[in-house]
């Protein structure tokens, strides 16, 4: 392995570019203290690992690598809040607008229900920290739903006026 893994995969000076770009540039000084060469085991383990990556090409590295500590896939929302709901729907362009309008179950009304339930289901014996955390969560979700509705209303207005101008033209 004298050529180094970076060179093996055609990626020279790996710390100079790629790892910096995915927020791991600080790894190098840590590595130097994290491994004990006296045991001699870790480099061997690493060598085993590289065999698991035999086809890991440069393209995979630059195109599909988490650029920050990754979230679980189910919570990943790379683009915006609409993608989450869209992912659960059939991929047809015809109902794209409707999909945005009917964005999952977390409408303002539903969040309002949850708030109400929170007050009814839990009483003063429940830990206040938990209540605070749930209350804060619902406030944020509610804020998000309202923002979504505002954006949707703006979109609808744009479509309405856009449609009018098309007709008058």
């Amino acid at each position: 392995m004298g050529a180094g893994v970076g060179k093996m995969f055609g990626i020279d000076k790996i710390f100079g570019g790629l790892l910096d770009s995915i927020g791991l540039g600080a790894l190098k000084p840590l590595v130097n203290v994290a491994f004990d060469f006296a045991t001699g085991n870790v480099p061997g383990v690493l060598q085993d690992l590289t065999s698991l990556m035999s086809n890991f090409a440069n393209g995979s590295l630059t195109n599909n690598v988490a650029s920050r500590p990754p979230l679980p896939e189910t919570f990943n929302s790379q683009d915006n809040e609409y993608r989450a709901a869209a992912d659960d729907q059939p991929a047809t362009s015809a109902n794209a607008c409707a999909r945005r309008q009917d964005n999952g179950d977390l409408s303002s009304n539903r969040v309002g229900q949850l708030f109400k339930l929170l007050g009814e289901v839990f009483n003063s014996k429940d830990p206040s920290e938990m209540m605070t955390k749930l209350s804060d969560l619902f406030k944020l979700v509610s804020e998000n739903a309202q923002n979504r509705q505002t954006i949707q209303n703006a979109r609808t207005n744009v479509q309405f006026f856009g449609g009018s101008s098309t007709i008058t033209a």
Partner: protein
Amino acid sequence: MNNQNTSSIKTSPVWLKAATNPRSPRARLGVTAKEFREMGRIGGMYYNRGDLGKARTVFEGLVAMDPESSDAHAALGALFTRTLENDLALLHLSRAIELDDEQIAAYVNRAEVRLRQQQGEAAVADLKRAIELDPQQKNAAANRARAMVMGIHDALEAKSVM
């Protein structure tokens, strides 16, 4: 920054324990799996935008709502990894893995924290597990693990040459 919120380490298990007894708040509130996931994605949106305060509010709320959710713990652990709160990160990432031993993101983030804590061999074990769980090399988190392995190897090699 590492010890920014160490007081929460002491308090977290208390409310986690209380929240699980007798039924999780999620069950008592009737929050569906889809709603739970959607809330998680709202947190993910804040996280990806860099609004970590709001992301933390969401992820902490989800852990409080369902302390048995591996995803919620993994997300909160990712956030603490990002904010360099190592002890809190380890707490939630390890719990996420206990609840779901195929939680790739949690392994990758725990490896990063363990590297910071100079636990090289434990870090490599987590990276190995993450890589093995994604043989198709399609998972961005597992690919981060691959990039880390390459980086670690090159760093070690550079050191041995010196």
